[in-house]
């Protein structure tokens, strides 16, 4: 067994130090490292455990309580004996490239608990909401842990990045913040699979916000009652509603699996993510040269079909060009 195979074995055995090393490897952009990280991901993909875990993507405006909620989710999931991997993405400064990754604290885990893993990552500046390596990191995490939670910040376009890497997108808002109205206007309500109004402990403002949200959803999904995403009220502070949130997310995934959509969804997602990476390198002109987005995505789909990671496919296409 070579070094990478051994690393993969240990990742699959949920050895947190190995998971840490594997993610550091997929973050490494040196050419030699990317060959190795490509191979690592391939080994994971062919291990039979690839993407076994359920990935939730938590997004929403700063201050909504995402970090606190991730902590509560981790706690409740661990109580259900699920292994948990967390990826917290914080913005990096466009000027220095530096970042402060401090939100980890809110995840009050037991340092002896080997089945709760927490990693933070800076958004890196080259992509809006998620770090370049986030997709690959999620592949590592979903191979190792049963529940994976990705937290991202940012309002507006980049917020939707999280949908490229997660099975279930969860939008978190807080009551009485005005954010809600903005989301409704910006059409962002189309994206999430589950909506959360957090800070239930603040009282009537929270229940009112949930009612408004339900009304807005009914309006944006006319005649599609079945596809209206559920709205869950939580208090990350007291853990109220967090069990229900986990249940709703599990139902969403079960639905995807039942309709056979899970695999197709994941493939589509990986293609979109690869496209995002490719466009980031090649620019709009690079996409034009290939005959537009549809063509680029088709070429990427082929490369992905050969077993490459999103990142590998994007860089291969960039080279082929």
């Amino acid at each position, binding site marked *: 067994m070579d070094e990478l195979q051994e690393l993969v074995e240990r990742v699959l055995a949920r050895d*947190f*130090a190995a*998971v*840490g*090393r594997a*993610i*550091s490897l997929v*973050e*490494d*952009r*040196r050419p030699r*490292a990317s060959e190795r990280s490509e191979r690592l991901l391939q080994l994971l993909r062919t291990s039979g455990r690839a993407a076994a875990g359920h990935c939730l993507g938590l997004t929403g405006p700063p*201050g909504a309580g995402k970090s606190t909620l991730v902590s509560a989710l981790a706690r409740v999931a661990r109580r259900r004996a699920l292994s948990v991997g967390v990826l917290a993405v914080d913005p*990096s*400064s466009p*000027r*220095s*490239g*530096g*970042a*402060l*990754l*401090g939100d*980890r*604290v*809110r995840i*009050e885990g037991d*340092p*002896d608990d080997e089945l709760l*893993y*927490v*990693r*933070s990552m*800076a958004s890196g500046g080259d992509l809006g909401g998620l770090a370049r390596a986030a997709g690959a990191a999620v592949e590592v995490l979903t191979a190792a842990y049963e529940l994976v939670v990705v937290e991202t910040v940012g309002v507006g376009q980049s917020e939707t990045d999280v949908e490229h890497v997660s099975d279930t997108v969860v939008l978190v808002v807080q009551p009485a913040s005005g954010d809600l109205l903005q989301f409704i206007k910006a059409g962002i309500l189309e994206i999430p699979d589950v909506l959360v109004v957090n800070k239930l402990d603040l009282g009537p403002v929270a229940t009112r916000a949930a009612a408004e949200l339900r009304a807005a959803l009914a309006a944006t999904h006319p005649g599609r009652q079945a596809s209206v995403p559920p709205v869950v009220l939580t208090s990350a*502070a*007291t853990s109220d509603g967090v069990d229900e949130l986990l249940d709703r997310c599990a139902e969403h995934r079960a639905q995807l699996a039942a309709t056979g959509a899970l695999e197709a969804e994941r493939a589509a997602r990986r293609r979109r993510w690869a496209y995002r990476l490719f466009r980031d390198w090649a620019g709009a002109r690079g996409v034009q040269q290939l005959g537009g987005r549809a063509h680029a995505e088709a070429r990427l789909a082929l490369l992905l079909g050969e077993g490459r990671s999103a990142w590998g496919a994007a860089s291969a296409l960039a080279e082929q060009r």
Partner: protein
Amino acid sequence: MRTYSGHSTPKASNELYRANLAKGQTGLSVAFDLPTQTGYDSDASFARGEVGKTGVPIDSLGDLRELFEGLQLEQMNTSMTINATAAWLLALYVALAEEQGATLSKLRGTTQNDIIKEYLSRGTYVFPPEPSLRLIADMIEYTVEHLPEFNPVNVCSYHLQEAGATPEQEIAYALGTAIAVLDTVQARGVSQASLDKVFGRVSFFLNSNLRFIDEVCKQRAFARLWDKLGLERYGVQDAKLRRFRYGVQVNSLGLTEAQPENNIIRIVLEMLGVTLSRDARARAIQLPAWNEALGLPRPWDQQLSLRAQQILAYESDLLEHADIFEGSVVIERRTSELAAAAWAEVEAVLARGGIVQAVAEGYVKERLVAANAARLVAIEQGTQIVVGVNEFRESEPSPLLEAGSVDAILRVDPASEAEQIERLQRWRAGRDSAAVASALEALERAAREGSNLMPPSIAAAKAGVTTGEWANTLRGVFGEYRAPTGVSGASTPETLQEQLTRLRAELDDLTEQLGRRPKLLVGKPGLDGHSNGAEQIALRARDAGFEVVYEGIRVSPKELARAAADEGVHLVGLSILSGAHLELVGETLERLRALGLGELPVVVGGIIPEEDAALLRARGVRAVFTPKDYRIGQIIEQLIALVRSTSLPKAG
């Protein structure tokens, strides 16, 4: 005059108190150890190495009994520096007083009980802000009724200045704190007469630094705004009740490690700011020692500071005059300026929904971190002169620092921890466990139902409940809190662009070579609350281009090692000012090795005596930084070089 004291065990502290009282000291000022202040029993894992270090450990009524052995509480005036667990310590105090047959209404004393400055500076908080404020209001309600001579709250701006606050900020956030407390009490529907009494009972604890003219004006502005608040916001008609009552400890943050004897001159000048003006004179003054930045002072060092006060009081003519600033246009102008600026900041805080919200959002802490960064950058760039540090550095050898004198800084006997744990275990074995369980149940019920927590706490004290049990029961209901670090919202001042540009280029280059951005874990292990240094390092490192993982204070070595493994960092930097560096660094290195991270470079910063620094280096620590390394830019440069030399494959 009284000295703030307490150490190792209740018994040892009792002997100290009796000796001090015999010498004519008029009251007691009790210092508690950090486990007691943060609601842990002496045998909790977080308490390891901390028991009896910064003050006396109190685990139960038995400990308090021993602490006050032979002393009549009814005759004492006891000041307790206790905050998050203040309600508990007061409950123990009341239980003991009842045991002694004292008349409760005669009990005199103070609990510090200012939780807001704990989130912002001092660090011994436990519960989230809302329930913490409720505990304070419960205590006020209880004392106003049963202990009318007791001061339940002492609002501290002292600690804010030690965390970098400007005079305006010091005034604004302290008043914001008083407003939060008074509003909570008012919201409970007390009568105007009670509100008047509560207002009159609120006292303050201020700071005063070397800009002593400014400090004179700050105290005047404080008094003016307090009077205005009393009259306008709370309708207190009696002018006597609106008097601004305060004590002062003068500034320590500006005392230096370099040429430490200069500090005695600084201390004297600082003292002038709180004594010169009769209309703005502190009721009580505490002075630090000349060797403040070296370690805990010895009795002789404290004596020197005491003598400074006595010389001013008895040899000078200061006390013979009325206010010497009366009619001064300069003082009046500056006072109005400060009052206006501070009031604007009070309004900014109120606009955010009050100090509790402003703290929880991180706003206030960010302002403090930014103010401290501005101060440190000015020193680094030489626009603010600190004698012996960035100017006039040449020095004759100091006889005070000759071998043999410095290593005599006070050290605490580690055996006392074991002794205290044994006491605690005996206590647990000897009590009625059914009574303990039902007392804790009653406490939990009251916490959930919202009734006053003092009566069930007093009952718990009598039943033999321990400090950790009391705090854990409330943790279960209220949750445990972590305050914002303030680093994310602050940034390095613009004046440092040149340095930052250079560091960024270096880090970009290193990022290319490493394949990913250098990642630094800044850790504060143990119960140590000194966060200034860690915050400033984290801030500068981030602005230079590091990815910085900083989780705030009170993270255990085990958690730090785990974070290093999970996060895949290139470098770990520990910040320790509590004096527990040998234990904490040792344990962190051990934990890292156990996770296969023995090669990961570790650096340490803080109050580290030179001989300890050598020991740490011998154990594998790559570099040790102390306050002498005041150029943070140079520290960051060294960190970059260290990552370069440890994370890159050695060239050919």
